[in-house]
């Protein structure tokens, strides 16, 4: 049974990685803790759900358009509002995004209501020996990993990506090199929202979506970033997989009511012992 538990943990972990990667990027590059992240994921989920419900569009098809919509939203928000406070202390930016999150929550609550919704597609299960892999989780894992991989490649190879990395490393030097820092900030925030939206689309098949989940997703993102390291895509991946495995295995050994607790304790321990996370470089103070 342990092998199934480990497999479950890995599948869960891939989803967790997807939840966290956008959040980690924004935090690492812009130095902003984006309290809207959970809200973005749920928004992506709702858009996917309603396009499936009313127009019959399969979630994996609506994934890209939904994610692009979220990109637009994130870009605009950053360009107009968040950019003004990017250089302010942690608490200021956090409070601002928290206020924005309250507005988003209220809006979604009014538009969509809090009824749990799920895209009720049954994709079947793959049998590998005595291990079972549900196709939707496999697909989600593949999607999550692909998106993460795509993001990684973008950061490494594309001009925008190099610019983002440059800004992350030293924003003044990057500015001197001719990089339009506010534009890069906005694009990064947009990418964070894009990943959140994509994650929402993926998640709408696996979990029932509801506005009351925004906090839960955000909390997971926090823990994963700390475990894996801030601002790096591989970090979010490692952190997500690690958390998924930890929750599954500790749930198995110590009982499910302790699984989440242990995740937080581990996060705290890691923060103390290795604040940059398993993979991170020296993070922000």
């Amino acid at each position, binding site marked *: 049974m342990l092998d199934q538990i480990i497999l479950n943990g890995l599948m869960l972990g891939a989803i967790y990685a997807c939840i966290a990667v956008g959040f980690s990027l924004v935090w690492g590059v812009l130095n902003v803790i984006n309290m809207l992240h959970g809200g973005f994921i749920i928004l992506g989920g709702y858009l996917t759900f309603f396009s499936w419900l009313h127009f019959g569009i399969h979630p994996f098809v609506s994934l890209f358009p939904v994610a692009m919509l979220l990109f637009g939203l994130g870009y605009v928000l950053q360009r107009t509002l968040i950019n003004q406070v990017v250089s302010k202390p942690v608490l200021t930016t956090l409070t601002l995004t928290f206020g924005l999150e309250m507005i988003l929550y209220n809006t979604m*609550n009014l538009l969509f209501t809090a009824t*749990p919704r799920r895209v009720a597609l049954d994709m079947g299960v793959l049998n590998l020996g005595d291990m079972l892999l549900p196709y939707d989780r496999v697909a989600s894992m593949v999607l999550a990993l692909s998106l993460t991989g795509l993001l990684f490649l973008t950061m490494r190879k594309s001009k925008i990506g190099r610019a983002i990395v440059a800004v992350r490393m030293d924003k003044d030097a990057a500015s001197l090199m001719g990089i339009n820092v506010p534009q890069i900030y906005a694009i990064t925030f947009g990418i964070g929202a894009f990943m959140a939206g994509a994650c929402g689309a993926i998640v709408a098949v696996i979990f029932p979506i509801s506005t009351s989940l925004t906090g839960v997703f955000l909390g997971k993102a926090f823990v994963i970033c700390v475990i894996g390291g801030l601002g790096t895509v591989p970090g979010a991946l490692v952190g997500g997989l690690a958390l998924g495995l930890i929750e599954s295995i500790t749930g198995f050994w110590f009982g499910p009511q302790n699984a989440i607790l242990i995740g937080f304790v581990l996060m705290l321990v890691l923060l103390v012992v290795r604040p940059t996370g398993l993979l991170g470089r020296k993070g922000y103070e």
Partner: protein
Amino acid sequence: MKPLSQTARKIASVIVLSASLLGSNAMLSAQTIKIGTPLALTGGLADEGKKQVIAYDMWLNRVNSSGGINVGGKKMKVELVRYDYETNAQRAQQLAEKLIVEDKVDFLLAPFGSGHTKVVAGVAERYGVPVVATSASSESIFDQGYKNLFGVLAPNKGSITNLLALVSKNLPQIKTVAILGREDVFPKAVAGTMNALASKAGYKVQSIEYYSVGALDLSTPISKIKSIKPDWIFITGYSKDLILARKQMADLAVTAPVVTMITGPVYREFIDALGAQAENVTSTTWWHHSALLKGDDPWGSTKAFYDEFVGKEKQDPDYVHAASAAALVALQKAIEKAKTTDKAKVREALASLDIKTFYGPIKFGPNGMNTAIEGLPIIQVQDGQPLPIFPAEVSKGGLKQFK
């Protein structure tokens, strides 16, 4: 002088502002009966709060359009005073006092959350304001000795007893049970009750585990259940948790002859979210719309309530809707019986109430819980509908094995 006068001015204006903003709301109308209804319009229980609103409004319309409640010969209209308690205990406490002191409500309905019901009851008890709960069925909610707290839902025990009897009779080969509960007031209480009563009824409870609030993955406990191979899988939680649990059971190919989930399957959203996977899951409920009850209330019969609801909402009502309306009916009847809106006399009338309604009989026991309802329905999802399979009067089908 500048810095201090700024500070001084600031502080002074806050004092003035507070005095003016918090000026008492002059409350008119000694001719209406005011009932305070704290509602979860935001926060974790926002979905359930919405259901209460629909039911409250239905009752209000009926009662007021017939002139109001008969108070000793005179008809008085009803006003429902509502605020959002944000699914938050501190707000619930604050709200209870606001409703009692500022809005001067005569009576209160409890908020949806079990723990929050206790908090509101605590405030109401001090003022001697009767509170009727619409969604509290766990004994632990009524365990603080509050004399003013009443609840229309039958205690969990009744449902579980009926469920055990039904399964024993129809599927006597079922011998072992695995229980998975959410670590939260109501779901934990139900899991505990099942544990105790199943053992007493001769079943072997092979495992009982609890998952934390906010769990996004139940695959580990479900994998464990798979390895135990119980005859009966019993899971408690809120809709989101149960949808996830059923999905992950399918992911891991976990089945058993009987699968029970409390209370998800009675809600439309559970069936919508799972599609075919919801089939043959059993559950218990406190009321089913196909009941043939008749009562002395604004509707007179279950059918009348059902018809009005379907006409408005275009879907079937579930027990939350019915119990919410029933709570108001109980208050109404107690007021009629007491022939006054005096809180103490109405409290006495509630304590000695013994009526039949479209929702079922209502008679409150010594701790305030409704002990009158016996044949608590058991439902099973069949052909995408929550079908009642017990008791015989409402049964539309037999218990099927879960596939």
